[in-house]
């Protein structure tokens, strides 16, 4: 324990946002499966699934707005944008670590700090997630919440089938992301280290 150092990585607003978002994602995926496979799954009545999906969807949008405001107002948003000069090298090191070094017990090439908490791969993945995939899912979700109200936009984007397809493909992607994200969270110095840190805010450095 002597060589452990606690570093405050995750501020309270980020932790609250993260867990609210996590709960919303899980509920959206469960209700999403029920909506998609209404005739096959029997988790809950379709009407309830749709209503829960709608309410949780708006909660997710509100939560995202808080995240966006917090990260932009504090300037922390830059942690999502990698340095173009070092990105490729860092990404290769990170791929080597996850694909090989981790099995040999090699140290993680990325050292987490409050100013640079994501490794190169996380930066790229989360930037795509937070600035492309999540907004696309929210916009298509709102369109499908009131089809008639947004019919002009839907038609301009190619019709309801196109909107539905984008929403469904992203839904499958997010369902898969939840699995991978939870697994990657076990890759700390102990399997629960990152989980604890997302509650306390402190990551242990060795």
């Amino acid at each position: 324990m002597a060589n452990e150092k606690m570093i405050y990585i995750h501020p309270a607003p980020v932790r609250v946002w993260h867990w609210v978002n996590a709960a919303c994602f899980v509920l959206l995926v469960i209700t999403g499966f029920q909506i998609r496979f209404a005739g096959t799954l029997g988790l809950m009545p379709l009407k309830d699934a749709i209503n829960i999906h709608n309410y949780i969807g708006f909660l997710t949008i509100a939560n995202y707005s808080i995240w966006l405001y917090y990260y932009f107002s504090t300037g922390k948003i830059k942690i999502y944008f990698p340095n173009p000069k070092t990105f490729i090298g860092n990404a290769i090191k990170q791929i080597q670590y996850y694909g090989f070094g981790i099995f040999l017990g090699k140290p993680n090439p990325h050292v987490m700090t409050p100013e640079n908490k994501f490794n190169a791969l996380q930066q790229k993945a989360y930037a795509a997630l937070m600035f492309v995939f999540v907004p696309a899912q929210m916009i298509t979700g709102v369109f499908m919440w009131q089809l008639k109200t947004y019919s002009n936009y839907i038609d301009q984007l190619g019709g309801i089938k196109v909107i539905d397809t984008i929403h469904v493909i992203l839904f499958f992607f997010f369902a898969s992301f939840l699995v991978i994200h939870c697994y990657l969270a076990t890759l700390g110095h102990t399997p629960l280290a990152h989980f604890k840190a997302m509650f306390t805010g402190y990551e242990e450095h060795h």
Partner: protein
Amino acid sequence: MKTTSLFHLLFIVFLSCLWPSVLLATDNSECMDCHSDEGLTREAAGDVSLSRMSDQLFLDNDKFHLSVHHLNEISCVDCHSDIEELNYDNEIPHKAHLEPVNCTACHEAEGEAFSQSVHMEIRGKGITMQCYACHGYHYVKRLASASVAERENLFCLKCHNADNYHDWLPQKQAHFAFVECTVCHAPTVPSHIHLNFYDLVTNKFFNGNQIIEALGIGFDEFLPLIDTNKDNIINTNEFEDLLLILRQKNIYTEVHAELVVELEPILHNVIKGGSTNECEKCHSADSPLFDAVAIVLTLEDGSAEHYEVEKDVLNSFSMSSFSALGGTRVKFLDKIGLLVILGGICGAGGHLFIRLVTAPLRRRNKENEQDS
């Protein structure tokens, strides 16, 4: 001479046989002599029980000519059967107050279905609903080609404000736009999906003649042109080919799908509490609502030519403007989704497996580091 006399005699006998019907058969044109006058109105009845919904007695002959009754050669006196003869010596050549028309004299099955309906039940509350409350009087049109909006506006929405009673229904405006009221409220009536061609240039529906003229064929040649495998049903590939052909003919169209009921007498059996609010009954892949699909080429008289289409067309991207949750989902996406989720599970599981297998190696490496 003898032969000629016999012929005259037979002719007189023939005429005498016709005499009563010649006397009774009042031609529509005779009625229109007076009723084409836009100013013709009924005098206010002293007896309020003889009052009618409208005082106007004018009849628009052009609109009447497009009515289903005129097209079926039903004359005025076939319905207004209490007019036995016209006496032009009088100011009004027939009875001033005619009996209400008895539609069920011809439409017996419709009357039977109606008698079991909620619209008959309301008579218990003192409200009498006659056929013409929904159908109107003289301009009853064929409805086979009518859109959901036309059907709703002409009938249910005259009295009912659907918006007030469907707050439980997700996407209620979309349901109102794509599903005819009676699909749910007369649930014993068969229904089918109408596919219409919407003109993206003029923002109006193409009628059948426009489509047929653009293709340079007759109505009889439409199915043989599209149904290349000659099974009398248009499959997804043939449907996509049709859209391509139309595009080549400068018809820029979007296919519009609507769920409408078959125009059968039982349609009048609208019942209270008979509709379902279980979404799954409609929104599932095996829902019968999506089994019958037809391209509809509409005709000017309100009739339509139907061409059967495979239900899989609804699940395809050719139907860009129609999607019913569960019922018409693109199943190919489910396969992609399964692969994406399995990929995530296998990736994480595989990585975990290698971590578990290589745990002794890491332990040994750590011990070596500590020893050194």
